[in-house]
């Protein structure tokens, strides 16, 4: 409106700008289209993967977000319910709030814990001669191949006659009666954390080893000339900044892993666990999604979990970018 002159006619300048914009837009579109046509073969190469990726990764996210605003239950037609599911989650579902707290607690311990163990072990074995390094890489990576081994750990910590740990503690006279490790609120959480940490030398561990081996000797020699005094300075000012890309990648893997421990928790503590002491969002999701078929509500839970993962990842990446500064 302001661009119009007194007589109500559009001023010449605005008309010119509009034309230019339209023109520019058309030219850009034509250029893009020409680029697309020129790269036809590239699109053919990525098409099969991208179509499947869209169906099995992008669509589920979109579907979750969509259903989270409905009361879908697999039987009736879904009705739009606005933010009701989210309101219910935080205001009426005490168990969800507890599960959220537990999820963050497990993630905060097993994520950074596994990450630091992986980094320290990778750093240590990087110093070893080739053969020893290969053997240790295989041995330390092996637990993450075992996939939790909850059946074995259940027997190890069992409270019945076969419980291995109890048997020895009794024999040594450290305890007088069997401890119900997996049925006791105070024990079950640390045990889960221990089992998760045991299997946490996975992809990020391999990535750190790869990253460390990619750093040439010349960097350390140059750093020594620049006055780097001890191993810690070397680690902070030379090694870590040079492997920052691997640190970022490892963080993504560790966070994803820390949120993926649902099966270990259910395997060790059962679902529901005693007094919901190890109840996480994963268990809550399983409960509402596969047992009660409340798809609308469980989609809202999944969406929350999804947002939490993305948020934590962004946060951690910001932190890691400060390494060596």
């Amino acid at each position: 409106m302001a661009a119009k002159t007194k007589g109500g006619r559009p001023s010449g300048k605005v008309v010119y700008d509009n034309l230019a914009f339209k023109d520019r837009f058309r030219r850009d579109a034509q250029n893009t289209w020409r680029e697309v046509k020129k790269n036809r073969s590239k699109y053919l190469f990525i098409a099969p993967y991208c179509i499947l990726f869209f169906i099995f990764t992008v669509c589920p996210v979109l579907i979750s977000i969509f259903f989270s605003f409905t009361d879908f239950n697999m039987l009736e037609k879904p009705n739009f319910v606005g933010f009701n599911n989210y309101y219910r989650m935080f205001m009426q579902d005490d168990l969800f709030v507890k599960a959220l707290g537990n999820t963050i607690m497990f993630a905060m311990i097993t994520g950074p814990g596994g990450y630091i163990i992986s980094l320290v072990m990778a750093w240590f074995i990087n110093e070893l001669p080739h053969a020893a390094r290969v053997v240790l890489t295989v041995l330390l990576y092996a637990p993450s191949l075992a996939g939790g081994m909850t059946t074995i750990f259940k027997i190890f910590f069992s409270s019945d006659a076969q419980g291995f740990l109890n048997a020895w503690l009794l024999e040594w006279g450290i305890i007088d009666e069997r401890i119900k490790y997996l049925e006791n609120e105070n024990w079950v959480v640390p045990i889960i954390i221990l089992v998760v940490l045991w299997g946490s030398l996975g992809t990020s561990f391999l990535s750190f080893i790869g990253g460390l081996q990619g750093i040439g000797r010349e960097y350390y020699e140059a750093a020594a000339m620049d006055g780097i005094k001890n191993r810690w300075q070397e680690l902070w000012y030379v090694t870590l900044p040079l492997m920052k890309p691997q640190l970022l990648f490892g963080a993504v893997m560790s966070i994803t892993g820390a949120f993926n421990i649902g099966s270990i928790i259910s395997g060790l503590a059962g679902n529901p666990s005693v007094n919901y002491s190890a109840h996480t969002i994963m268990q809550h999701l399983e409960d509402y999604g596969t047992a009660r078929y409340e798809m609308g509500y469980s989609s809202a839970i999944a969406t929350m979990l999804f947002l939490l993962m993305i948020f934590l990842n962004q946060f951690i990446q910001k932190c890691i970018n400060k390494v060596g500064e």
Partner: protein
Amino acid sequence: MVVFLTTFTLLMMLPLIYAVSMSLKPNSELWKFPPNILPVNPTLKHYRDLFSLMSDTWVPMIRYIFNTLFITVVGTFGHITLASMAAYPLSKYKFPGSKTIFVIIRTSLMFSGAVLAIPNYLIINSLHLIDSYAAVILPAFSTTLGLYLMKQFMDQMVPMSLLESADLDGASEWRKFRTIVMPLVKPATATLLILETQRLWMTGATPYIYSEEKKTLSYALSQISTSGIARQGVGAAIQILMMLPPLIVFIISQSNVIETMSTSGIKE
């Protein structure tokens, strides 16, 4: 340092040693108090029991083995083919949308499959893929980690100059991909092979496949090990046997894996 590394490795090995020892203990030793750490009279009885239990399951065991092998081989092969085909243009060329596509794929590394399980079931259901091998195989084709690692490896290990000189010879994209790119990325191929084999080999696939004759080995074995307290030794034997194939693949390909991982980093 050496002491620390040895102690730490032994601690990490303890549950595995425990599992191996359980699978070798005769029943009398499994019930002994206090239990021994290592078996006194090791026996392969549980492994023999496992095979006899396997032979009188309702569906012949060989069928479960075939199912898992089929899913693992087809899934892994398809994943490697599709992921490297997609990684090649994303890594080496710029074209409209290329950057956005990769950012979306990289972001999806950040959330785990647990979040997607329920909507994935709905999708597989609406595609009428429930109770078919495709319900497991098709999603496996588009695993994100594989494409990401392959693309990062190509970024550093496939020199643009080779591709340009092939352009001068008038080579087609497919020819460049087959004769230049793929031979250069063998370590990354080996890495995708181990990661995907490992994942698919362990898959239970229970919600997607309900016909008994299409179920996987991992599912069948977990049924055996959970049916009865006296089967602890057999249960341990199962754990060991299931772990062996991925472990062997890893030992063979570990130097390739480490080489690939040296390019795995996220660059801003």
